[in-house]
């Protein structure tokens, strides 16, 4: 589904990603862990199509398409979804109008007929239940006045509505108390299928107790320095990131 080869990316002339290689197949869950400043969020931003980041080398092939050739909106229409680390508040645009517009454009891109108002509402209801998000939140403007946990839950709700093929969760666990973390993880697990893949970017291992990854990668200084199975996350938690630094620098 996704093949990243020798990806280099920089912002304001400063190189952040220094040769990432990663293969992800449908049905897999990959965790990317790493200390602050290792390039985790940059990787997410480059995948989603943030224009501030310049890709200087390498390629990303997504379902046979060159992802880097696509605008951010076309990536989303092709099924790439980024759950933002810091979801933006947009006063004056209701969640409902936002999702209606998004789904309308995605369907038009795929050459599908517009969704009927009735089907849309039914889908909203169903997905709302799935991710346990309060209806009153959905009726409000996008993230306006939402708590940190509510914002993260809204990201997962949007993910449920847009039914992406590749979801990238950028530090979705940060700032969540354990109850909210369980709800979010539960939502993600329910949305998992054989056809879609998930990348979980996180600093801590805790989220991985609830969303079990198939593979764990450790990012350090713009490169994946170690990959392994889910046990790697536990090792990392136990020994701390310093052990990676020492290992790499040794």
């Amino acid at each position, binding site marked *: 589904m996704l093949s990243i080869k020798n990806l280099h990316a920089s912002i304001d002339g400063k190189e952040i990603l220094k040769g990432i290689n990663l293969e992800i197949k449908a049905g897999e869950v990959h965790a990317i862990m790493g200390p602050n400043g290792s390039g985790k969020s940059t990787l997410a931003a480059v995948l*989603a*199509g*943030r224009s501030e980041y310049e890709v200087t080398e390498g390629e990303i092939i997504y379902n046979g398409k060159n992802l880097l050739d696509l*605008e*951010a*909106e076309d*990536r*989303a*229409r092709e099924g790439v*979804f*980024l759950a*933002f680390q810091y*979801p*933006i508040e*947009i*006063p*004056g*645009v209701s969640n409902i*109008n*936002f*999702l209606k*517009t*998004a*789904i309308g*454009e*995605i369907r038009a*891109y795929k050459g599908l007929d517009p969704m009927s108002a009735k089907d849309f509402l039914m889908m909203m209801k169903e997905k709302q239940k799935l991710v346990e998000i309060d209806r009153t939140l959905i009726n409000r*403007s*996008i993230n306006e006045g939402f708590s940190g946990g509510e914002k993260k839950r809204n990201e997962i709700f*949007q993910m449920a509505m*847009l039914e992406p093929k590749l979801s990238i969760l950028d530090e979705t666990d940060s700032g969540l108390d354990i109850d909210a973390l369980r709800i979010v993880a539960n939502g993600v697990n329910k949305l998992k299928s054989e056809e879609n893949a998930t990348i979980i970017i996180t600093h801590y291992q805790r989220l991985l107790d609830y969303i079990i990854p198939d593979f764990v990668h450790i990012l350090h200084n713009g490169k994946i320095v170690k990959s392994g199975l889910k046990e790697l996350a536990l090792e990392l938690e136990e020994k701390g990131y310093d052990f990676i630094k020492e290992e790499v620098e040794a």
Partner: protein
Amino acid sequence: METVIKTRTIKDKLNFEFEKSKLFLFGSTQLRDKAMESYYKQGIPTRKHEEYKYTRVDLMLKGEFDFSANKNCSDAQIEPLKFIKDAYVAVIENGIFVEGSSNLQNLPEGLTICSLVDAEKSNSPVFEKHYAQYADVKADPFIALNTAMTKDGVFIHVAKNAIIEKPIHIIHISTTSEDTIIHPRNLIVVDENSQAKIIESFETVDATAKTVSNALTEIVVDKHAIVDHYKIQDEKELGYLVNTTQVIQQKQSVFSTHTFTLSGSFVRNNLTLVLDDEHIESHLNGLYLTAGNQVVDNHTVVDHRKPNCNSNELYKGIIDGKSAATFNGKIFVRKDAQKTNAFQSNKNILLSEDGTINTKPQLEIYADDVKCSHGSTTGKLDEAKIFYLRARGIGIINAKKLLMHAFASEVVNTIKIEALREYIEENISKTFQ
């Protein structure tokens, strides 16, 4: 002879027109003479005039002018302008009230709507008491000119304790094939404990020449009255509008005014609210969408004269192309006006490199126990918000449109007449095409 006329200054032309027509105009000759004299003293403001330094009204008045606007529009042309279906409609064409095009059948008890000429003819005591009592001819040359030269307009009276459920819609239409200056004038008196919703719209129909409209409305909001007032300015490329709104509010009254500037080459709004007693509430909302070479200038004054009043002002603008917008908001809190709450906010989005926004809050506070604040911001559309929407599959054009709607919605949502809110929303969508 022809060439001599063409080189006359605007002052000469106005004087000639004034002398020629004043005997035929309604109202007191004395009032008109005094107003004209005041106009001569002030002259057409230039850039040196503090209140007009950002907007060149003198340029608007260059060229030859016809003072007897020479066209009439058909009912078929007027019909689409009646965008509030269930309303009492008064049509003013080139500054003259046209009863035949208006919809004033079955007015409810307590509501009077007629031409200014008829109000004067019928010796209405309400008209006599209030006409030309509030907009001060010495304060502004356009007030002086309007007072001297107006030919007609609408008189609306809502009697004590009357609640007028349907909106009252005054449609100002300019239609001309010669450069024209007109001076429509309205007087609206809402008596004690009564309520009304009033919409004034400004439109051009089939205009093939410049139409300068120097329109003035005086509004009296008596004790405990509640008035909701809307101005929809949509005069297209040939429209030049100076729109003065002078409001006097009495004890415990509530007045809300909303100014929507959708189009027009030049729009200058002079909006003044005088809060002349205690426990008054005032809301001033404005939205201007400018593009091309448009000039839109909002000057507002909120004059707190007595204690315990609240005023709240919110103006927002989206500026594109080479257009220029000005917001100048004055708040006076007089010595007696203790416990005043006065808030003002002006927010702008600049879409282009060549657009201009001048924003100038002016607070003059002479009381010591008050809460006043003002703020103004000018920025671009937020890139982070655009990206968030795009990351969900929304194309860049629709993303920007959504954000502009969102920005405008804070003002649009203050509209209490649903049909009007829908009309404005539709027009905003068209503007953003």
